[in-house]
Structure formats: structure tokens, C-alpha cells
């Protein structure tokens, strides 16, 4: 043990962990800024401008504000669960980053079951929502929590099934191997990305991912006009911040997964000096992810919300059969080729 901890490998690992953790936390903070700014642009508003240039210091100000806000715990709530819920929500959301490959070597650990690991930890995130709503002992949060968790598990199904088609082609559950499998090109130009082989799976994945993260047009859980703020209506200060952080983390996770599975992860054209070559994959990766995030925000700004029955019907009666059909067709094609 001592050798392990003092070994150079361990030090590299710790550096990786802190780089990724810090980077992710920073990115999540600035995601809120990005979202506010973009939304405002779409609505012909300037967005945050006061704190720092272009409001760039806004997230820091927000964070400080959260820290100093009064922490309200409603009287009739189940105190222990009420406090535990935000952590239960945040920890799985952040834990996913331990296996995501941001670059060829910028990955904390490459598990042989990496993809399933992400599914496993995100499936735990549902407890944060369910318990948060329940522990508040209030009507809107409970309603929002139940709705939200039902929605999440409904779409988690199609999300899980849509991935199977990709796995049939790649034959691995390790995220790093998933990326390297897409490294080569067809005809020297077209990258060998799975999006070209599994377009249906990608569409199903994308829709499910939006629903899974409770974002518009699937944000039924917190639809402001009906449920105030959904499961976190009663939450304030740092606990609220943690719910928000978890949501953004989930957005980044599903976007990263989409990049890894369908868009070749960190692969991309290589050029320039050695130092640049080291950084390029991570740049490509972040670029692809940010396109997804951009898309998310635009969706939020433009698409109207579903009705709950439409939402459930869409998930169960359209996406689920579609993903099953995709599996059957893919397996047939793979089997005969």
C-alpha cells in the first residue's frame, strides 16, 4: 500500500483527478453562465453583464451567494433525508467523470465495464430526486419528484437500449476502447464514427438523454407554471446549488457519452508541434461536448414543453419500440455481414 501511494503512478493519478475535478467544477459553474447568456441572446436580452466583463465573474458571485444564504429546513420535513438528498443527487452525477476519457491519457481510470458503470451511478441519481421531494413533506416537491423519477426511469430504458446497437459494433464496454474503435476513417476522409452506422440509435439516445436530465422540452418535473420548481421547491442555499450542479453534471455526462459513443470521442485531426498534439484530443473532445451543450440550451430556449401524458406515451410507445427495432435490425445486419 505504501508503495502504491508513493509511486509515481499514484501521483500522476492524483494530478489527473484534481485536474479533472477542478476542470469539471469550473465548467459546471460556467455552464450556468453560458446558459443564461445564450438564453438571453435568444430572447434579445443582454444577459448577465454586471459582474466582470460580459458577466464572466457571475458564477463566482453566485457561488458565494449560495454559501451565505439562509439554509431553510421546513419544519415537517424528514430532516436527515432532506439534508442527504442533495448529496445523493450530486455524488453519482460527479462520479461518472471518473471513467470519462477526456483525452488519450486524460482519464482517471478505464474500467472494462465503464459504460455500465456510468449507467449504474446515474441510475442512483434518481434517489436524490425522489428522496428530496419526499423529505420536503410538501405537495409540489412530492408531485415533482414522483413525476420526475417516473420520467427518468421511462427514458433510462430507451437510453440503455439505444446503446446496445453501438456495442454490437464495438464489442466492448470500456469507454477508451469505444473511442479507439472509431479512430480510423473511411476513404481517408470520413471518420469512422458510429453516428453513421447507428443514426437511429443516436436519435433515440439524444431524445432520451434530454429527458433523462429533466431538461426542456422534458422538464415536466419542475414545470414552473404547474409545480413551482418541482422536487427542489423547498430547497435553498447550498443544497439548491448542489441540485443545480448535479443537473449540469448530468448534462455534461450525457453529452460526453454521446460524443464518445457516436462522435469518436477525442479523435480528430492531428497537427502542429508535440505539445499541441498532446492537447489537441482534449480540445476536440471539449469542442464536441460543447456543441451538444449548445444544442441543449438552444432546445431549452426554443422548444415548448410536452404534456405529461404525451411524454410518457412518447417514451413508452415510440422510443422503446424504436430502440428495440434498432437492436434487432442491427443484429441482423451484423449477423449476415
Amino acid at each position, binding site marked *: 500500500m505504501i508503495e*502504491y501511494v508513493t509511486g509515481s503512478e499514484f501521483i500522476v*493519478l*492524483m494530478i489527473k*483527478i484534481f485536474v479533472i475535478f477542478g476542470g469539471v467544477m469550473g465548467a459546471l459553474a460556467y455552464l450556468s453562465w453560458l446558459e443564461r447568456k445564450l438564453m438571453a441572446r435568444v430572447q434579445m436580452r443582454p444577459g448577465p453583464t454586471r459582474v466582470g466583463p460580459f458577466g464572466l465573474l457571475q458564477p463566482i458571485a453566485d457561488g458565494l451567494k*449560495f*454559501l*451565505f*444564504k*439562509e*439554509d*431553510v*429546513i421546513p*419544519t*415537517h420535513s424528514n430532516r436527515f433525508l432532506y*439534508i442527504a438528498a*442533495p*448529496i445523493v443527487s450530486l*455524488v453519482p452525477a*460527479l*462520479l461518472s467523470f*471518473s*471513467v470519462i476519457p477526456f483525452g488519450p491519457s486524460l482519464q482517471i*481510470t478505464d474500467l*472494462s465495464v465503464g459504460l*455500465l458503470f456510468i449507467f449504474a451511478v446515474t441510475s442512483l441519481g434518481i434517489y436524490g430526486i425522489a428522496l428530496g421531494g419526499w423529505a*420536503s*413533506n*410538501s*405537495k*409540489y416537491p*412530492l408531485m415533482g419528484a*414522483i413525476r420526475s423519477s*417516473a420520467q427518468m*426511469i*421511462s427514458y*433510462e*430504458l430507451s437510453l*440503455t*437500449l439505444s446503446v*446496445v446497437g453501438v*456495442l*454490437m459494433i464495438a*464489442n466492448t*464496454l470500456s469507454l477508451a476502447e469505444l473511442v479507439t474503435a472509431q479512430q480510423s476513417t473511411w476513404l481517408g476522409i470520413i471518420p469512422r464514427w458510429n453516428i453513421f452506422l447507428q443514426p437511429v440509435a443516436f436519435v433515440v439516445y439524444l431524445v432520451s438523454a434530454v429527458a433523462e436530465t429533466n431538461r426542456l422540452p422534458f422538464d415536466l418535473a419542475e414545470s414552473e407554471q404547474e409545480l*413551482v420548481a418541482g422536487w427542489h421547491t*423547498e430547497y435553498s*442555499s*447550498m*443544497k439548491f446549488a*448542489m441540485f443545480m450542479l448535479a443537473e449540469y453534471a448530468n448534462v455534461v455526462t450525457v453529452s460526453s457519452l454521446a460524443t464518445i459513443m457516436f462522435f469518436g470521442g477525442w479523435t480528430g485531426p492531428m497537427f502542429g508541434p508535440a505539445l499541441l498534439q498532446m492537447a489537441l484530443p482534449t480540445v476536440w473532445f471539449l469542442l464536441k461536448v460543447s456543441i451538444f451543450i449548445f444544442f441543449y440550451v438552444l432546445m431549452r430556449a426554443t422548444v415548448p414543453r410536452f404534456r*405529461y*401524458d404525451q411524454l*410518457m*406515451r412518447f417514451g413508452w410507445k415510440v422510443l*422503446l419500440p424504436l430502440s*428495440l427495432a434498432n*437492436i*434487432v435490425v442491427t*443484429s441482423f445486419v451484423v*449477423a449476415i455481414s
Partner: protein
Amino acid sequence: MLEKWAPVLIFFILVVGFGVVSLIGSYIFGVKKPDPRKLSPYECGVQPIGTARERFSVKFYLVAMLFLLFDIEAIFLFPWAVVYRQLKLFGFFEMLLFIAAILAGYIYVWKKGALEWER
């Protein structure tokens, strides 16, 4: 083997630590001015009526149940997909049979109206 998992454990401790520390920080730095109105459940400004612990439609249970059973199926699909190229056509047909059985259940559920949210 375990070397692969050790970083996960470290990261886990880090993340939990972050959560706990920030909660404690908020507890320390936060203002505390409790007042019964503030601590009562939010109900758009009016006095809360009745208990919040209401019973919900059984449909939510049905959704969770369906999810559970389909999830089991998905779990079988993962190892299958990973070894699919070795199994060849045999794998295709055995999974076809499996999916057919599940599909029968799906159609049953659909026909029984368990997927309807309108009513």
C-alpha cells in the same frame, strides 16, 4: 484488477467530501433567522391544506414495474452485444426469441392499457 477501481474510490471520497464540506460551509456561513411562516411548506403563499402525504396513482407503480422488467432485459443485452460477433447467427436467433417473449409482454401491457396516461 483492483488498481482500476482504486481511483474510483478516491474520486468517490473526494466528491463526497466536497458535498459534505460545502454543506457544512453553508451551515456555518449561512444566515439563520427562522420563522414559522418561512419554515412551513410552500403552497403559493396560502396556508397549507391537508397533508402532503397523498397517495398516488398506481400508474406510477406500473411504470416502475415495467422499467424493472425491461431493465432486466437490457442487462441481458449488454453481455450479448459484447460477444455478439462470436455468437454469429445463433446469437441473433436466441436473442430474437428472447426479445419476442418480452415483446409479447409489452403488447400485453399495451393492450391492457397500462401505458395509457390519459385516463
